[in-house]
């Protein structure tokens, strides 16, 4: 089995789905000749032609709006938005159009599209290239939201997303793009949407995270004293949330911390904390801790390290939670 990084795993998933299904097509800024600014679509235009891997004009609303039309008319568009900071211009088409298509037409029209978006901080990028807006889309009924933390998952989840009959936002953590390499089967496979993964078992505390923060959590766990037995959950799908996996774990451990990059207030950590409270109230030994970005704009990159949760902040939060 080949060892692939996230970029290569996603590239492979895209290629295999295009191979398998004529209806699948890609569009976005600079994804064709240039293979995308992160090279995720490298080689695909050459292989599938400029009609199926389309360099679009600089119009995010246009990319998503035309994708909706394509999807309504039976295609399976996989648009890319170049950075999460440029989802803004497409927000209306995503939230007010794509997400509502099925329900407002009572199923007469559906909107099977998969919006790929590089997300998150940590790569010393310019402004609006390092945000974590996932909760906005989790709050939007009608969408599914996926964010893998590693290559193997990414491939299987992306293939599932493309085949899903409803609109999916597929966030790709930039910081992981080249950071993790692992064995990824050559053949096509799917992983179910809506399922979280317990990536390390434990009995004292449940740590919940997703995307690039999963690796940071793992690094923090490595530093944890032996006595502390932490269960780490990688959500993988942010909407719908896998409430069962989360709450089963926390009802067992009695303590939980959520780690994410986005600002704390009304971040996805709030939903998870609330769900845990609602479902595990009598088992909770301490308040659910949220270890998150601050309630500030994402700073320019000189200060992004201070902004992003790191091992120390995670350790401190876990320690206090365990000691509560």
């Amino acid at each position, binding site marked *: 089995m080949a060892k692939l990084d996230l970029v290569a795993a996603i590239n492979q998933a895209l290629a295999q789905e295009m191979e398998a299904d004529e209806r699948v097509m890609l569009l976005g800024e600079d994804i064709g000749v240039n293979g995308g600014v992160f090279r995720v679509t490298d080689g695909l235009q050459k292989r599938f032609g400029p009609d199926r891997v389309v360099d679009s004009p600089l119009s995010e*609303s*246009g990319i998503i*709006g035309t994708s909706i*039309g394509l999807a*309504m008319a039976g295609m399976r568009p996989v648009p890319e938005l170049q950075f999460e900071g440029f989802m803004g211009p497409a927000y209306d088409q995503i939230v007010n159009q794509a997400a509502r298509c099925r329900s407002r037409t009572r199923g007469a*029209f559906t909107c099977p599209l998969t919006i790929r978006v590089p997300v998150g901080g940590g790569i010393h990028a310019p402004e609006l290239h390092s945000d974590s807006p996932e909760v906005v889309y989790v709050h939007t009924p*009608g969408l599914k939201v996926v964010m893998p933390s590693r290559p193997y998952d990414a491939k299987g989840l992306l293939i599932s997303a493309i085949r899903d009959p409803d609109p999916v936002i597929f966030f790709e953590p930039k910081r992981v793009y080249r950071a993790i390499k692992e064995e990824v089967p050559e053949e096509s496979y799917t992983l179910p949407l809506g399922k979280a993964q317990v990536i390390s078992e434990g009995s004292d505390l449940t740590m919940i995270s997703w995307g690039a923060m999963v690796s940071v959590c793992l690094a923090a766990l490595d530093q944890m*004293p032996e006595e502390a037995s932490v269960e780490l959950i990688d959500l993988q799908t942010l909407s719908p949330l896998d409430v069962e996996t989360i709450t089963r774990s926390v009802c067992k451990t009695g303590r939980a911390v959520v780690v994410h990059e986005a600002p704390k207030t009304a971040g996805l950590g709030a939903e998870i904390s609330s769900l845990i409270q609602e479902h595990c109230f009598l*088992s909770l030994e301490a308040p659910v801790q949220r270890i998150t970005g601050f309630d500030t704009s994402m700073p320019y990159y000189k200060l992004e390290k201070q902004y992003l949760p790191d091992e120390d902040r995670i350790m401190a939060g876990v320690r206090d939670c365990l000691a509560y």
Partner: protein
Amino acid sequence: MPKEVVYSAQIERLQILGPDGSVDESLAQGTLSDGDVKYLYEQMILCREFDEAAFKLQRSGRMGTFPQNKGQEAATLGAAKALRKGIDYIVPYYRENPAMFLHGLPMHYALLHWMGDERGNAIPANLSMSPICVAIGVQTLHAVGIAWAFKRRKEDRAVICFFGDGATSTGDFHEAMNFASILKVPVVFCCLNNQWAISTPCGHQCASETFAQKALAYGMPTIQADGNDLFAMYKVTNDAMERARAGGGPSFIEAVTYRLGDHTTADDARRYRPAAQLESALKVDPIIRTRKYLEAKNLWDATQQAAAEKKAKGIVHDVIGVAEKMPPQSSDDIFDYMYADLPPELQKQKQTLRTDSIGMDPTQVGLQPPRERDTTRGKPMNAE
């Protein structure tokens, strides 16, 4: 060459049927047959009747806000006539019912939509149209996407997208025009310039002399038509659709017409519209113009008029009956169309019609005494 002309353009305006009902025979050649005009005129009467009935439904509290097409019948129907039923595709906004009706939409769907019932958007699968769209401008992009799908699949189909003068101010309109022209997809942008966007006169919506010239920004063929002229509307749309089907890419049409009613039933145009303007617009009502034409050609008389009006009333009456007799949607419908497969949390919400978690989970509902805190669990790492 220090100074040179790098671009020049001209835009034409077409009128075939004058306000007095007289027609330019040479231009009319090969457009609408007598039968076509009669048929479309009957549709106009029907749609006008529908509008009046809808107005009354709203006023009597039997329907919510409704936007009448009143005054735009020739524009809508003339354009729609240029489409092949079930093949070419209509992407409407909210004021173009007549086009949807002409292409097979059961009329009660439009009522359902404005009665606050999503079933009005459940376009039957055999029809070639998308549902009413309330957000201004967004559908122009969908139209481009649909046309793109046709092009990709090499289907012999073209799309017409309707929108108002106000819609041209939206970013989405611009992006749609740009995408369409780059991709050369088979779509016709039909701008119903009815002079107003709610209370904003079209002269305040933009500073350009015409709406037609907006297409020049995209290198797109464009024309202005008298929107109250069935013939002109049919002709410019037909030309544009044929160009689209032949691979010639998108076109733009500005249909200059007039909104004879209020913006919607929630609006009162007397607050902002000069009475004189409405009065002169009433004189060029497309229905009157078309009738003049038919009468001048001896294709229509008072008896036929009375019969058509009676027939329209009957149809609309029945349609209202159908809409009002629909069994009500159940609250299940709120949930059942959110996803192909309802996620577990939504299933719970659907079953309990509650969101508070105690109420949702029967094992929790205050029936069980609070459990004792479990103190046997693994000690925290920094406990003494």
